[in-house]
């Protein structure tokens, strides 16, 4: 008696092939789940935070908040906040005479955060501000607004 069918495959062939494929696919699946360890699972940062009262901020000046990497601008009507992280490669920009400038690769922005020159491709994001019940100002980094949008105070 022979196990061979009309196409010439034996039962042994089938078992061999089946076990090889089973081993390979099990290996691939196992390594996928292991490789996921390399991808960090980042817990959400607190995107809303308080930055104190309006009186902390001098009028008609950009104030740099070092720990939040933020420029806060206050004028007589209201207050606005813009990111201080260069959209090019993530350095902290500095206030120049007529806007902002990045020390790392020289991108220049206007006071509205618009890219004027350099390698940056995106404008600086402005964040929505709210006033909390205790009178402090809250920055919401998850909500972007127009550069002209102020929190009137």
């Amino acid at each position: 008696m022979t196990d061979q069918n009309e196409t010439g495959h034996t039962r042994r062939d089938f078992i061999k092939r089946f076990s090889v494929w089973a081993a390979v696919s099990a290996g691939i699946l196992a390594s996928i789940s292991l490789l996921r360890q390399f991808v960090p699972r980042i817990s959400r940062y607190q995107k809303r935070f308080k930055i104190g009262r309006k009186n902390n901020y001098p009028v008609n000046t950009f104030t740099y908040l070092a720990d939040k990497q933020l420029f806060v601008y206050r004028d007589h009507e209201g207050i606005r906040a813009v990111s201080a992280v260069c959209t090019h490669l993530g350095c902290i920009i500095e206030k120049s005479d007529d806007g902002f400038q990045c020390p790392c690769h020289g991108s220049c922005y206007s006071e509205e955060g618009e890219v004027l020159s350099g390698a940056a491709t995106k404008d600086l994001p402005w964040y929505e501000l709210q006033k909390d019940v205790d009178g402090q100002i809250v920055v919401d980094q998850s909500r972007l607004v127009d550069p002209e949008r102020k929190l009137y105070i």
Partner: protein
Amino acid sequence: MPDSYPEDNKRRLGKINRNFFLHIHANKVHPHSLKPGYTFGLGVILGFLFVIMILTGVMLMMNYTPSVERAYNSVKDIMFVVPGGRYIRNIHRWAAHSMVLISFLHLIRVFYTGGYLKGRRLNWIFGVVILFLVMFMNFSGYLLPWDQLAFWAVTIGSNIAASFRELTDILGITQVIDIGGFIKRLLIGDDNVGQAALSRFFMLHVVFLPVTLMVLTGLHFWRIRKDGGISRPETQSEGSENKSVRAERTSKYFSWPLVMWAELAILLLCASALLVMAFLFDAPLREEANPAFPENPAKSPWYFLGIQELVSYSAFAGGVIIPVLFLVFLISIPYVDREDEYIGIWFSSPKGLRITWQSIAFTFFVTIALIFIIIRYGWLNTWFPDIPRVLVMLINPATLSAFFYVIWAKWIQRNTGSSRMETTALFTCTITAFIIFTVIGIWFRGPNWEFYWSNAQWPVF
């Protein structure tokens, strides 16, 4: 000691064969492989430097702590408290810098002598991978002191990886697949450089990369043996096969003791140069990392300043497209050029040398003209403020000069009909341009990455 300097050939063979460590050598070497003016001993120097890196690295590791709070102070301890720690750190530093420099010199030597021809294709590719690993080794190493240079260099480096977003933004698919963000998170384990980045880079620097490098170095050495030793010109007497083989066999030298003497000389030279360097020049340590304020100018180490100059034109073009194209070009060299008759001859022929000089001149003209334009007159986005940003990404001094080099190489290929001349032209152009951009980055860029003729002109803040 009668056995120390064996007189008869059998013992000379035994010296090499019976010793596990010397066994890496062939029993006999071709006289050409020992010519100092051919190899300059660069590969051997790199091997020794790697050993020195491992020894000094292990010593540094004993006193270093890879944590954000402790890293900077533990490096300070190494420099000011641990006996001899500063010296060991200096040696580690200068050996690392020498490895980058000598890896490039080795690449240049092997290219211009046609060392990738005649079955040495695979070993050339190993070599290119080793070159990039050495660069990455250095990159991961300079995060560890956690000083200002470390922090901002890795912030910039990880954002270069994230600059894929410039491409996905144009296609409008960043929300769906954020390749840039994924690579960045894979690299630094977070959205910003912090403890996760330090842990990952520590692991890469002390385990993953050294082991990978060791394996690849082993393969690299093994291929040299398999390919019949270091590349050399074909012997003239091609007449009868047997005769030339026999002639070659008798003209070869025994490795013991000749190669040993040569290698010992190189090792001593290397070690003494490093000891003197480490004695005279301290490895720098800046202020502790401060995520709120970058230095101005924030310059990376010298071997990355060429790339920094390129990314100042466009992050994605200068940081991803051009380096990837360079890597692809290097790997493709042995597949484009198969003119085996040029193996082992410096610059192939007098014509090759002439084309090399012409390519250097061409690169100087084109690249410096483009750099002059962008420094003196600005670029597309300053002339036409409303221009789509993608145009600046595609057309900037980095991509334009690469484009001109390819045109030049194609033109050489058409004139000479030789793929060897074509690759010579393109290789010369890219290496020359890399040097030009690096020189601009090192000496002619000041605060805010602006152009200055010398740092005596830098403004005082």
